[in-house]
């Protein structure tokens, strides 16, 4: 005798529901956006005080500042978004939904990505204002670098925050693991955007972009597998 059940929602339906939930929660509290957004501004102010506002230095330091700020914001966002699932153990309720892992991973990834990209929409213009760059970087390649880099960072951060969610000292351990693992992304980001900020070299970011894409692909696949292992005991 087969079960007479309502049709099981598929991946896209599950994803839509989870994503809607994550976004609603964030929009209602604006916890991450407010704290991390302010943090981004504070960072930019600090860096501008740190003597980088020199025209000579700006083009070489701005890329570093940009990607360090993104990495800082990433750690902030990843810890927080997964912490929500642990409060009230809402995650256990989600795990009782059959076949939810794919959608759960994707929704967490997209939420992180969305938050981080929103923060960058604030961060990047501020950076371009604060740093007296010799040339304005071409928009399209810069956006491509930011997108690819952020995607990889989120793929890694999502699985790391899921794994560390139940560990003591996770707020400290997450950056400790995230930053070394994200080194390829950060180097590619810094070097790639440096070619965009430099008036003399307007090419050469392509290689770095492909490194980022390789990173993205690897950590999306690994991330999905290991997310299941980390979340579902």
């Amino acid at each position, binding site marked *: *005798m087969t*079960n*007479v*059940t*309502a*049709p*099981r*929602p*598929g991946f896209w*339906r*599950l994803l839509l*529901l*989870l994503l809607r*939930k994550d976004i*609603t*929660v964030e929009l*209602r*509290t604006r916890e991450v956006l407010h704290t991390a957004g302010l943090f981004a501004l504070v960072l930019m102010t600090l860096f501008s005080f740190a003597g980088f506002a020199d025209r000579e230095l700006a083009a070489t330091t701005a890329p570093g500042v940009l990607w360090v700020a993104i990495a800082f914001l990433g750690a902030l966002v990843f810890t927080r978004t997964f912490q*929500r699932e642990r*409060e*009230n*153990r*809402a995650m*256990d*309720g*989600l*795990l*009782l*939904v*059959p*076949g*939810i892992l794919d959608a759960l991973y994707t929704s967490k990834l997209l939420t992180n990505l969305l938050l981080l990209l929103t923060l960058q929409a604030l961060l990047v213009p501020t950076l371009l204002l604060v740093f007296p760059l010799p040339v304005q970087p071409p928009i399209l390649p810069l956006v491509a670098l930011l997108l690819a880099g952020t995607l990889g960072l989120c793929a890694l951060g999502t699985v790391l925050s899921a794994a560390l969610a139940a560990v003591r000292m996770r707020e400290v351990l997450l950056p400790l693991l995230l930053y070394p693992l994200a080194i390829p992304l950060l180097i590619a980001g810094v070097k790639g955007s440096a070619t965009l900020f430099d008036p003399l070299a307007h090419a050469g970011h392509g290689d770095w972009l492909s490194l980022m894409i390789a990173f993205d692909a690897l950590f999306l696949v690994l991330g999905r597998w290991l997310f299941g292992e980390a979340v579902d*005991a």
Partner: protein
Amino acid sequence: MTLATTAPTGPRNHATPHGPRIAVHRLGVHFGRTIALHGVSFEARRAERLAVIGPNGAGKSTLLACLATLLTPQDGRITHDGALDGRAHRHTLRGRIGLVAHDVLVYAELTARENLELYAGLHGRGPEAVDHWLDRVGLASAAHRAVGGFSRGMKQRLALARALVHEPDLVLLDEPLTGLDRQGQAFLWELLDELQAKQVLVLLVTHHLETSAEQFSRVLTIARGRLRHDAPATGTLADVYARATGGNR
């Protein structure tokens, strides 16, 4: 676009109605050196209502977590409907389990309705089910308030609705009486009767030992990780507990 808009259509008809709904065989769980459960075996049929009692740290919640497939036991096995191994089939079995855990398993930032809609939607249930259950647990008037501001009793009612909205045929309740007033407790018993009528198996963990044992078809007494006693009982749960442990502890 909603895919599933079917109204709740009474009890779902799962697999064989004969035979035990769950069979627990020599279950063993340990955390490091601590033995949480050891050699626990029992069976339970549909429409049964089991009480699980025992002192703090006896392993009641661990047992529930194993039954909910959220914790994989190191030893022994749990089979569902006689054949389905909980370990291998947990992804299909999970949709049939309703869990009221120690925590409420909801998002404090969302309203009661949003929480319920989320879980209903994930299980393929439409808004009718949500309306039905909000009404049923008496939260219809508070449906648009954020759960963070709810009292313990209201949270408990919401947790009940969340656990039942997808009409599971195995319901696991961890201390559901906590935070409920007299009226709420009466409602809970009513709800459990209803579930029994729908052939749902209910396991209820409680430390409210003044509760009458006659409310349950059987009482499982757990102490130090072992099942000490498993039988229908009379009197209060406190009496059962005293008899089961022989007054030793």
